[in-house]
């Protein structure tokens, strides 16, 4: 077992289809050290989101293994994987994925409460202040703009101080200006907290801000780059 926070070896994902079995991810391996950042790029349908799902333990590979923060995910059941996620993982999604029935503060408190933290309210308040929404704590998602919603999502992602942050097209639903602002925040927070970042994007500029980048096509890795 290496000292990597994320270690994936020989991942394969096969799904049944009308024409028989379809391979959507083939023979993929990667390792990430703590504080590292990785961009996964590729066209639509290249297997980016599938890979992200496998790395985050949202899904299990057909073969191969993923170790996340020292846990072999394939050996865990769904509830045990949920616990691993609660302790070690944060998410940012393209469509924000805030709970409509909770206000901004409560959305950010959610992962802290899942982790059983007593200081949830204080920490969530502080983080929302950090992303510039200190005045909007009791607003509901419906009352916030897209950029604001994504900032709440960022605060939520960092709230439980995850070891790894998975971001799926975090600026995909935002205009250039707002997207740039959210990107800044994402990388700032990442730096401040020493979080490992796995970023799925087709935005090359965004990808270039990561330490490393892998390019997928048809479920296979066709290139790997490391920032100078």
């Amino acid at each position, binding site marked *: 077992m290496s000292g990597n926070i994320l270690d994936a070896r020989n991942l394969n994902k096969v799904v049944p289809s009308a024409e028989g079995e379809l391979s959507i991810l083939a023979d993929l391996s990667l390792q990430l050290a703590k504080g590292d950042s990785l961009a996964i790029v590729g066209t639509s349908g290249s297997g980016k989101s599938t890979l992200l799902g496998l790395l985050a333990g949202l899904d299990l590979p057909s073969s191969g293994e993923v170790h996340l923060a020292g846990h072999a995910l394939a050996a865990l059941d769904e509830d045990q994987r*949920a616990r691993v996620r609660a302790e070690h993982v944060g998410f940012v999604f393209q469509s924000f994925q805030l709970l409509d029935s909770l206000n901004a503060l409560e959305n950010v408190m959610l992962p802290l409460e899942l982790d059983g933290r007593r200081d949830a309210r204080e920490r969530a308040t502080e983080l929302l202040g950090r992303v510039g929404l200190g005045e909007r704590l009791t607003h509901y998602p419906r009352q916030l703009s897209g950029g604001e919603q994504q900032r709440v999502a960022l605060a939520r992602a960092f709230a439980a101080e995850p070891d790894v942050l998975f971001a799926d097209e975090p600026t995909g639903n935002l205009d250039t200006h707002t997207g740039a602002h959210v990107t800044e925040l994402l990388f700032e927070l990442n730096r401040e907290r020493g979080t490992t970042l796995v970023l799925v994007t087709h935005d090359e500029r965004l990808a270039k801000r990561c330490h490393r980048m892998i390019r997928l096509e048809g479920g296979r890795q066709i290139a790997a780059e490391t920032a100078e």
Partner: protein
Amino acid sequence: MMRMPKARLFALAYRQLLRDARAGELRVLFFALVVAVAASTAIGYFGARLNDAMLLRASEFLGADMVLSGSAPASPEQIDDGKQLGLDHAQVVEFSSVIATDQDLQLASVKAASSSYPLRGTLRSAAQPYEAEQPGPGPAPGEAWAEARLFAALDLQIGDSIEVGSKLLRLTRVLTYEPDRVGDFYSLTPRVLMHLDDLAATGVVQPGSRVRYRELWRGETATLTAYQQSIQAGLQAHQRIETANDSNRQIGGALGRAERYLNLASLAAILLAGVAVALSAARFAARRFDASALLRCLGLSRHDTLLLYTLQLAMLGLLASLAGALLGWAAQHGLFFLLRDLLAQEIPPGGVWPAAAGIATGLVALTGFALPPLAALGRVPPLRVLRRDMLPVPPSAWLVYGTAIFALGLIMWRLSLDLKITLALLGGGLLATLLLGGLLLLGLKGMRRLLAGASLSWRLGLGQLLRHPLAAAGQALAFGLILLAMALIALLRGELLDTWQDQLPDDAPNHFVLNVLPAEKDAFAERIAALSSHAAPLYPVVPGRLISINGEPVRQLVSKESQGERAIRRDLSLTWAADLPKDNHLVAGQWWTEQEATDVPGVSVEAELAESLQLKLGDRLSFTIGGLTREASVTSLREVNWDSFQPNFYMIFEPDTLEGMPATYMTSFHLPPGKERELVELARAFPSVTLLQVEALLAQLRSILAQVSLAVEYVLLFVLAAGLAVLFAGLQATLDERIRQGALLRALGAERRLLLRARRAEFGLLGAASGLLAALGCELVSALLYHYAFDLRWQPHPWLLVLPLIGALLVGGAGLIGTRRALNASPLTVLRES
């Protein structure tokens, strides 16, 4: 803007329907509609067929489907008309005659019947007095049957001959049961049954003698109606038409209540299904916002977009309605199969009307409840393809509620519920909704404070409810309505059964006694007391006729064919009593003990008759009694329970005011089984007394009530099934959102247990709140219904307080089952949605 040819639009709608169906998109709506139509059809069929069966029973009491009776023979045209229409015919002539044997004489009531008599029901007779009876055709010419008490009174044996007028007839059997011998308790002497062919030879029936001619008819309802219409105009003053519908008060009462109950149950099932259709149609519409925006974007006009989805929904509605009607039809067949032992007779198949009505009900419900959400589809802005947050302008509240209420009104009209029930239901429902909805809203807002300190699972579960109190209150009201409808139906069922049970307890009087002479009264009372522990008091009876009200001749005051008209046409049995009889309730005025004596005697009048004669307290009534005129003043009005098998009277005088009038006494009592011998001895000891067995009538009534009770129980099952189906449909409507939430929470690291606890909290609380609303609403609506529709006395029902618990269990359980997909949602869904 592109206008598509209608045929292409139709084809497109059809293709989309197929695609949506294949994708499982329409399951919920289809299911809700099938349930609605199936429940409505099954109850419709069940009600209609049972009603027919009960009408058949009621026909038995007439011995036919329709009877034309009169004091002179019917005209040849009247008879020919019926025969030409293909109706079956039988003829009966009834008269009183002295029956003579070598030693003795006895006044008897003779019935001469043609061979085809009776057309409904069967005659029953025994080989010897008090032996087991057998069904079979009546006496042949030259023969006669007599009741056991005639055998006792004249000391006759089977095989002896009796003289009826100048004709000698041989007694061949003991008559035990005639289907049509009911209701005429007061004019009965022992019955002799003979063949109509022997009538002329008796020479008894001469012009001017008191004879009742009855023409019995049997056939299809439509033919009977046609016949009735054809002879109605030429009806003589002495002639009357009776049909099964008005043949008998006791059955009429039971039938009426059963029919109202069944209709009410249909309404409950349809209301429930309406809620299900509304919920799933709203989901159908919401899920088509994107597609509809895209179609608008691609150039389809607003009108065509709307038409496209309307067509799609109409096709779905038609298909689902057909399937539902078929299912409902099959369900009622299963039901009648289960009841086959009880309902021994052939049950009419019920025709296609209930199925057609069920389909119409489904389509009306679909239109009423689905149109408003569908209308929103036409208003989806095309810009939604770019900005998904753009929602159509919601339809105005009056459109939403207006169409739903209009649809409900149509359905109620179809069920021909009377105005009082409908208003009591709608008014009560509306009042309950406003009152309870308001309370609930306040309660939910109050809970907000408690939320801050609650655990995460409670906060997640209640979060949804409390963030949108209006929606939560609406949901609780919807579930509450379901529970209310089910509780109300259960409540009424129990109440109706109890009422019927009270009406005909096991020891209900099965014998009436008439013509007890004043000199024999005390001795007779002693004998009865020894024979039965359940005897009514002996009431004096004085025949008298009402001739004027406040000095005006009564004939000018009443309308033809009214109850009042029938009451004044013949002698009334007048009585006097110191105490208000059991089962009578004063509705106006006071009983003697509570008022001062006046110059004219007081009389207490039965309330319905008083209404028909437009009598008020203080009105002066004149009677002729035994050739004398007596005045009386109306001092009270009474409600009488005619179903009670107790002696009942239209007029009860103050005691001692009919002194000196020729009175006989009457009573009723319960003869325990196995005491038939003692009854014969009683008849011998008091030869002038008329003893009338009503055991057969009682048995017939009990069997009808048993049928109705079973029907009532099965209908309750239908309503329950409809309610549960609605519950699931309602949950399905919020399933998408729940699956998304579940997946997100899982992705963020929530364990299954937490989600389960949150759901349990949410649905448990929702169910408990619904149950509480249902309990309160049920009391409110039942109080109104009892008062206005069912003539039942209302009392609080403390057991309704278990409804919150039932609600919590039912909604909680169904909620967990209905949303288990949300619990098991793969967290990967959140990525796919991105």
